[in-house]
């Protein structure tokens, strides 16, 4: 399964669990406008660390917080390759 598929799957699963409505997830969707709150992102990051073995927020040398869905997916793709 591709990193992108896993990331998108976690967004959908966490939205469902937390009873949030996702406002569509195109690459240029601003994460904070996706319908998810900080707690949802926190859970997604923890679950992705379990599944992909990386937490790019903590591991990355560059300090960076992704703004769009496309940024977020690329952040994980780059970390998973590294």
């Amino acid at each position, binding site marked *: 399964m591709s990193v992108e598929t896993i990331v998108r799957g976690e967004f959908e699963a966490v939205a469902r669990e937390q009873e949030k409505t996702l406002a569509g997830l195109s690459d240029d969707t*601003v994460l*904070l406008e996706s319908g998810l709150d900080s707690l949802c992102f*926190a859970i997604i990051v*923890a679950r992705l660390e379990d599944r992909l073995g990386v937490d790019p927020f903590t591991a990355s040398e560059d*300090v960076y917080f992704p703004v769009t869905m496309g940024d977020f997916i690329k952040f994980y793709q780059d970390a998973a390759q590294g």
Partner: protein
Amino acid sequence: MPRRAENLRAAIAGGDAALIGRERSVALSAMGRAMDADLTGRRILLRTSDQLFAALALIELDGVADRIVICPPDVKPEHLPSVIECAGIEAVAGEDPALAVEGLRFAPVHLPHPGEAAAPSRKTEWVLFTSGTTGIPKMVAHTLEGLTGAISGDGAPQTVWGTFYDIRRYGGLQILLRALLGRASLILSDADEDVSGFLARLGRHGVTHLTGTPSHWRRALMSPAIAGIVPAYLRLSGETADQAVLDALKARFPGVPVGHAYASTEAGVGFEVADGLEGFPAAYLDRDGPVRMKVVDGTLRIRSPRTASEYVGGAALLDDGWVDTTDMVERRGDRYYFAGRTGGIINVGGLKINPEEVEAVINSHASVRASRVSGRRNPIMGAIVVAEIVANDNATLKDEILALCREKLPPHKVPATLRFVEKLELTAGGKLSRHA
């Protein structure tokens, strides 16, 4: 300390600052009366929907009321009777009669109109709630002198404060008092406003000094609207500031000082760190000055004139003058770093969670034999709640436990991950080991 004042109204006199809410702003230069009732010498429960009215009532009542108990926005109505009894409350102040409590006098707070407010005549006790773990929140008593002890100087001219905090809690109240004593304006957040909306408003009103928890800041860094602010000073407190969030802020706002502060409702403002690094210099333990620090059994203790004086109607807060912060610290080289809390208290974005409360809910499921709840480091919220469970695993148990937790607990207390384990370590004393 040029602006030290006997009471808040005296402190703001002569200034031209404003309190800026989402719907309306109030110029403090023309602050007449915001309450009509004479509450001289009374013990007041301050219960507001909107932070702006809380600020107006605090200015009105400081030096007038005997005691002001400040309800945070999330106080549960079922806890009010015990709060009222314990604090000897005589009247409730708020902007909307819907906030009244049956059987108690209600004192409306309104936008100021011209007139003389009640004359200050005493030292008012300020009572705050702890950022609460389980059950009935503890009430912590402060004086204005103690609350403003870390505020020095007149502040830079044209300072405009903004805060992601709520001023009805310790961290936010500090910023309100800083603004008022510095005769600077303050932009208040609104519960119904998202982070991008608030950032846009901060930018419009020209915020210069902006404060929040590391979790607030991480969320702000994910918003494109952060491009609209041009701050001169950034500050973090309320949770451990890690190097990543400090570095991200420095990268986003080159050249802008980024400070992080250690403060708690009980211990008051302990210290500030301005070198851009996480943790704090070990040399702080040897500093002279009003705030003394020591590390006992790996936890940070603070003695200071800014600590709270007592828990209202409860246990002793001070041990020989010292507050046990229950924050554990580890020394590496010439610096101390925060390493969680004693008792396993988990700090999720500034909200404190007692693991035993979550364990009790999990353990109430018939198939669960034991559970251990702990915090897992998280780059978005500082920490999240995770659970290890000893149970006869079956296909639907995980979903059943999560459903139970969601029914009984607010979202931030529900474990983000559940893991089934064979057994849980116990300490020599037979207690669940909190440090796996």
